């Protein structure tokens, strides 16, 4: 998309005349940056008629924003690469953001087992999550920047299992406000707003481990998860093609709690109620940011989660030709 709102005659950009029409053509063909004219200066000029020599408007080339992507913006990734869409669902404060932030922090320190960082078009989105998570961790009183958006927001993450691997695997990781999930389990309209998860490669449903510690809150937390899944199945939002994992977050707080039987409380009833109605049902224990690192390491369980996200059932098709740009990146291995 290009807007060329040249007010000057000829092709003067950035105070420099382009050499020939071929250069202009090249700019026009570039598909995903913008030629923005800084109108503010032009406005100032028009307001001040005493200025005899008009300034030449500065044109700029917009770069990708690096922020999280809205649903309508994910083509920025999908027209370039085949992607796996991963939806991370869970109620308020269940740990969705922490999982995403911790993953990015781990890659900043080293490859994560055999996963290597190959890039991201949403590094700022990751950075924001890391920053707010660190703040929340360093200050008990700080209300963490939880996932507030009531629409899905996506982060892009490209990984390779080996530097020699031919192509990277591209994930679009999405989270949504816990409030939306809370409402969706009791409201068909809200549930239907989640219908895009039907094209998921994987759904990671997070149960807040902290709520499983106390007997008084335990059954309510488990029932909330069951209600959401049941409602999503009955509304045909998820079904026999869906790969779902039930993930208990903050596992470092849960393990060893007297009377807490993981199999009896989670694996058995969820398997009984849902396994036959889904393509795949897995169970994971995660302590992305354990309270201390004596028993659990940073990112405990995230490797198993990545393995679920990377489980290939079919060969990924390349984006269709009409979705592809003529940019070099599409001809190279990223």
């Amino acid at each position, binding site marked *: 998309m290009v807007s060329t709102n040249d007010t000057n005659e000829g092709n003067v950009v950035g105070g420099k005349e382009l050499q020939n029409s071929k250069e202009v053509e090249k700019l026009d063909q570039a598909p995903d940056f913008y030629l923005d004219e800084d109108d503010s200066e032009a406005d100032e000029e028009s307001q001040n008629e005493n200025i005899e020599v008009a300034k030449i408007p500065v044109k700029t080339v917009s770069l990708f924003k690096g922020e999280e992507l809205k649903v309508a913006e994910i083509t920025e990734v999908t027209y370039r690469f085949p992607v796996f869409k991963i939806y991370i669902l869970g109620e308020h404060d269940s740990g969705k953001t922490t999982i995403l932030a911790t993953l990015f922090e781990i890659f900043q320190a080293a490859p994560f087992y055999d996963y290597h960082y190959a890039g991201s078009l949403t590094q700022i989105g990751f950075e924001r999550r890391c920053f707010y998570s660190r703040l929340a961790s360093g200050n008990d009183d700080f209300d963490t920047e939880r996932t507030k958006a009531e629409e899905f927001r996506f982060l892009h993450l490209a990984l390779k299992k080996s530097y020699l691997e031919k192509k990277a695997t591209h994930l679009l990781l999405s989270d949504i406000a816990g409030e939306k999930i809370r409402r969706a389990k009791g409201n068909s309209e809200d549930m239907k707003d989640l219908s895009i998860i039907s094209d998921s490669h994987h759904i990671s449903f997070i149960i807040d481990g902290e709520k499983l510690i106390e007997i008084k809150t335990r059954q309510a937390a488990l029932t909330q998860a069951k209600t959401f899944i049941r409602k999503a199945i009955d509304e045909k939002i998820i079904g026999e093609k869906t790969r779902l994992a039930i993930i208990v977050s903050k596992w470092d707080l849960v393990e060893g709690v007297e009377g807490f039987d993981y199999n009896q409380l989670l694996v058995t009833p969820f398997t009984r109620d849902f396994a036959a109605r889904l393509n795949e049902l897995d169970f994971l224990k995660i302590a992305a940011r354990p309270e201390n690192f004596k028993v659990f390491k940073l990112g405990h369980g995230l490797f198993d989660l990545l393995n679920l996200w990377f489980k290939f059932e079919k060969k990924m098709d390349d984006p269709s030709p009409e979705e592809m740009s003529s940019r070099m990146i599409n001809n190279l*291995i990223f």
Partner: protein
Amino acid sequence: MPEQNISIIGLPASGKTTYIAALWALMINNSAHCSLQLHSLKEGNQEYLNKISEDWLSFLEVGRTMLAKEVGEVVMNLKNKASGTILTLNIPDFYGELFDAHFQDREWSEEYFMLMQNSKEFIVFLDPYAENNIAPTIMDERQFMEDFEGMEPVLVGKSVGRKKKEEVGSAPANSNLYKHINTSNQVKLVEILQYLIYTLTNETAFKIALVVSKWDKVAVNHKGIKPEQLVKSNLPLLYQFLSCNQHVFNVKYFGISAQGVDYGDKKGVSEFANKLPEDRVEVFDGTILSKDIATPITWLSE
């Protein structure tokens, strides 16, 4: 013979200016060690190059003596002594603020876009001792709090710095807002490289000479280490990114000591002052240690 365009990229204080000062001084003096020589002084403004090279030759800190706007984009016209290839070395921003601005504002000027579009080879500088190469992780924060009860990490400003709790006082009103200064250098460098692949039209891989500055210090502190190993351990995200994208980036790692000596070390300075300027420089490509400051440029021009 077609002219080549090589551009220099680097965040603030990454070692670019000292390198360029030394390069210019040695080009003007037609250093025997150099694989390149000056091609022409005919066009362009060499005022700032002359100033910083004089500082370098005089063992003075190559400081910010001019405003970035006054310096502008600087160009060197060079010639490969062996092949005769003429090449242009573009230095779009000495101070590195331009690259920070790109990260924050997410836009290039049209002029910069044209420059990048015409460059296929880049020198990327990084300072191995920069405090903000890696952001502190949550593990650092927790470990710190466990180790030093009563102290807490600084949440704003330089990410590696720590202060005693009583020194921190009340947090600034905007301390809970993400700012680009909070992002580590390695994330910014990955972003700068991603701008190239997502914004430019290029049919071949970009050639990148990744230069680790202050190599004299590194060589003393980490005996036997190679530049690539240092990047792998000190900027792991950047290293993973480059290694995963070998078909997009043809990278070679260099360690360069352009200053030669710590200017605060009087004994060292007087020792170096007795040497020829070209003997102050050391360049390590992972295999060969040489005095040819132009080694990365020569490799890029091959």
